[in-house]
């Protein structure tokens, strides 16, 4: 294609391309598409959704193969381009960023791109929208498909003209001769056909130096609808003839139904009980009737007390049962180096936390006549389809899962559970059912971030560098090859599902990112978790970086060295050095050792991560004030320098960084799930407080853009240095070392002694 055209085979290449693409075009397979322009940024979102649904229904039958350009891209008769993305916009901005990447390669305005997200009938399976992979894998895959599509369009135009592809470029929706003259519109070139070409891994992506769309802070198309109340969330979606369902969760984990008094809701006309084994629910035509019936329903449950309780977690982690020990990192001989050394030690604990999405989970399912359609805020519609098809005893092809925006999702919250609830209820009543969780359902039953316990020891060389480092961690072991987190409804309904737990990759970044000749990381893998766990933003790395970067600060203090200078001295990666220097400059860092024990209780802290040792680089400097009498911490300023390689949309990126910082400050200052032997007891915002506006600090962000480097992901990395930066600021302010999250006033006072 154009790459080949540039090699000088001027005679051969047009014929070659003609044969490649003419055969595809001549195949004349009907290309299913709906008509009508859809200008994403300038229409009412409700209308967008309606058109999207209409267009989507018309496109059913298209290939879902991620190896085919047609899997991702369709050129419509009106000149617009539809992009089919398996990755979804969870509020992080993929809805603009992926079109930017596609638009750049295709040579078309981003406003002419229609994005279809996470629909198992339409979008290729690009894996879950998780692990900061939206751009890095999802966007890059679509970028390659778009580059292939551009070369195919150019080849078609070149074949028409009998010239080499190298004489054309794709600009503003047309293939134009580079020498000037009239271009041909993409829609005319494709003429209602499919591309019918494989995604070419060698198709040449555009030179970043020529970018006109990527790298711009283009506005997100969903924001006008969101701030005017027009955007359609899953919570707002309506299906004809749907019932409202509410599941009654047991009063204790593992409790079984003894009996249900169906007459107890007789006062509510039309409301009725659905029971599938231990899955108890009510359905009604009117939502408030369903809520009222769920509150009125009298059911008796068996007693159950299988939990360790929040107070028991830390001791339980030490005792296990332990599945296995595993050495993850071993350089030099840390144990030997520590034997006779003057050791620095620290133990760090991260509690169970809730995703605590602001809107309780919601889903709608229509399971009838051997088919199922499920509307869900799932991060992984394809994965969920496999699980729910098995649960419904339907073939996979008879199940369609369609993504609609939910309330913020930072890992796996209750969205797949709510969808399973809706699916089982719909199957039982043979009507579409909408299930909306309550606040207590979400706080009580969403899968939780697992607890983490880390014990560190280290020693310095005589000149104050780090000589030896050991990390031991106690963390739950994720079940290998578990297809899906076990779902509440399936469990209650007695539907067999593979047992196990999911956590994400929670053992990473337990080793220092610095030059340390002797280091070791040992994991004690726990067989289980205190409450059903799932991945929560930057799984494990938030706690691990808290421990590693707090401990780095302890070593710097032991060496009587400035914490920034101490880190820079032990770092050789120039990208790491750059973000550290920039974050320090942002907050006007003056070199001196900690603690300063400022009279006013104001301190500054620093932390750094090279995420997973191969992704983004982030440094955070923070200024906090400690009220010595009460122990209250007030974060005054946070400065973040961030290098995630190529930046697609700096506006959306900055919002992600700010969100990571504020959410993780919330987790660090306020959050721990309370639970007794039977149930979660922190089931509202009073008992599970999160950060509020008066707690929000000023935030300074410095983004390092590296257009010639690959994008590295930004959904998680900047969360991880936050807890240590804050703990280190508190240490600098008052000389007290905080090692247990959350940093409550009581803990601060206790640490001050």
């Amino acid at each position: 294609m154009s790459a080949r055209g540039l090699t000088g085979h001027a005679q051969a290449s047009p014929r070659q391309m003609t044969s490649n693409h003419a055969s595809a075009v001549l195949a004349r397979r009907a290309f299913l598409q709906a008509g009508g322009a859809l200008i994403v940024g300038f229409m009412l979102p409700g209308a967008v959704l309606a058109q999207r649904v209409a267009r989507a229904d018309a496109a059913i039958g298209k290939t879902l193969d991620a190896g085919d350009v047609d899997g991702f891209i369709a050129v419509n008769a009106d000149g617009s381009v539809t992009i089919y993305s398996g990755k979804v916009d969870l509020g992080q901005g993929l809805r603009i960023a992926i079109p930017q990447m596609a638009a750049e390669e295709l040579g078309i305005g981003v406003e002419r791109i229609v994005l279809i997200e996470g629909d198992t009938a339409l979008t290729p399976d690009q894996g879950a929208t998780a692990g900061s992979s939206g751009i890095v894998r999802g966007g890059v895959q679509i970028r390659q498909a778009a580059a292939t599509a551009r070369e195919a369009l150019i080849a078609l135009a070149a074949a028409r003209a009998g010239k080499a592809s190298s004489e054309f470029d794709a600009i503003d929706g047309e293939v134009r001769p580079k020498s000037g003259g009239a271009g041909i519109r993409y829609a005319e070139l494709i003429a209602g056909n499919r591309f019918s070409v494989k995604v070419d891994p060698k198709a040449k992506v555009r030179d970043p130096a020529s970018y006109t769309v990527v790298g711009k802070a283009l506005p997100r198309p969903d924001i006008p609808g969101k701030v005017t109340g027009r955007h359609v969330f899953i919570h707002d979606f309506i299906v004809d003839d749907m019932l409202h369902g509410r599941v009654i969760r047991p009063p204790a984990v593992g409790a079984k139904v003894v009996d249900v008094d169906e007459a107890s809701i007789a006062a509510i006309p039309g409301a009725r009980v659905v029971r599938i084994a231990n899955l108890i629910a009510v359905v009604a035509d009117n939502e408030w009737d369903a809520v009222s019936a769920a509150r009125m329903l009298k059911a008796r449950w068996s007693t159950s007390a299988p939990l360790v309780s929040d107070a028991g977690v830390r001791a339980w982690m030490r005792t296990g049962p332990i599945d296995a020990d595993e050495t993850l990192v071993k350089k030099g001989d840390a144990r030997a180096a520590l034997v006779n050394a003057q050791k620095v030690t620290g133990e760090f604990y991260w509690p169970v936390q809730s995703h605590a999405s602001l809107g309780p989970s919601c889903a709608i399912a229509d399971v009838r006549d051997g088919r199922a359609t499920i509307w869900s805020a799932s991060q992984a519609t394809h994965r969920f389809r496999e699980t729910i098809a098995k649960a419904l005893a339907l073939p996979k092809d008879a199940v369609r899962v369609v993504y609609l925006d939910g309330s913020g999702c930072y890992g796996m919250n209750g969205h797949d559970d709510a969808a399973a609830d809706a699916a089982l209820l719909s199957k039982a009543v043979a009507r579409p059912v909408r299930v909306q969780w309550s606040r207590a359902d979400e706080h009580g039953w969403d899968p939780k971030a697992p607890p983490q316990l880390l014990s560190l020891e280290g020693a310095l060389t005589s000149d104050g560098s780090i000589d030896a480092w050991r990390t031991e961690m106690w963390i739950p072991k994720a079940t290998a090859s578990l297809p899906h987190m076990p779902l509440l409804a399936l469990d209650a309904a007695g539907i067999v599902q593979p047992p196990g737990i999911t956590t994400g990759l929670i053992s990473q970044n337990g080793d220092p990112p610095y030059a340390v000749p002797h280091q070791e990381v040992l994991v004690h893998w726990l067989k289980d978790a205190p409450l059903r766990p799932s991945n929560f933003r930057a799984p494990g790395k938030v706690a691990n970086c808290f421990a590693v970067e707090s401990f780095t600060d302890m070593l710097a203090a032991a060496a009587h060295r400035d914490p920034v200078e101490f880190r820079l001295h032990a770092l050789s990666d120039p990208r790491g050095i750059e973000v550290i220097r920039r974050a320090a400059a942002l907050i006007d860092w003056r070199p001196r050792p900690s603690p300063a024990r400022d009279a006013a209780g104001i301190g500054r802290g620093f932390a750094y991560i090279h995420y997973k040792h191969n992704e983004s680089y982030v440094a955070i400097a923070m200024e906090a004030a400690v009220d010595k009498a009460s122990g209250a911490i007030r974060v005054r300023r946070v400065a973040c320098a961030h290098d995630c390689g190529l930046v697609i949309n700096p506006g959306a990126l900055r919002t992600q960084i700010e969100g990571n910082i504020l959410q993780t400050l919330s987790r660090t200052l306020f959050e721990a799930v309370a639970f007794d032997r039977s149930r979660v007891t922190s089931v509202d915002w009073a008992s599970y407080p999160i950060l509020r506006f008066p707690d929000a600090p000023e935030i300074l962000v410095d983004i390092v853009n590296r257009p010639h480097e690959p994008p590295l992901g930004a959904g998680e990395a900047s969360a991880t240095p936050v807890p240590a930066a804050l703990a280190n600021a508190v240490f600098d302010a008052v000389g007290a070392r905080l090692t247990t999250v959350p940093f409550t006033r009581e803990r601060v006072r206790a640490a001050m002694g």
Partner: protein
Amino acid sequence: MPNVTLIVNGDTRTVAVRDPDEPLLYVLRNALKLTGAKFGCGLGQCGACTVIVDGNAVRSCSMPVSSASGKKVTTIEGLGTPDKPHPLQAAFIAEQAAQCGYCVAGMVMSGAAALARKPDLTRADAQQALAGNLCRCGTHERILQAMARAAGRRAT
């Protein structure tokens, strides 16, 4: 079923309700199809359901519809549209002040009520005015910038 009459976004709307204690939020979202106000907690703790009733920002999840009878209710849909946004909505768009956006309608309603009382509010004023509105995505900084813009403290 008893009828309740509300004045919603300037229109008089009469709704039949089985239960006069049905929260205003459910009536707005289901009977009147105004889904901008969101269910967040049902406890008046998070602010996602905020609407303006007779000039005051209220939690519609905790207000029985009968208490709103005869009153003027403004929802996010009545504040502005994507084509003609309220100045605060325009400021939210300019600052791209949403992530998932589930809380944002409540933020705009609380913020608009605060700006109506004090058009030149400070950052600290805005932090207090929105203290009862929770955001889980951590959009606080962008929202405070939007409030500053609407208060004339940022270039437009």
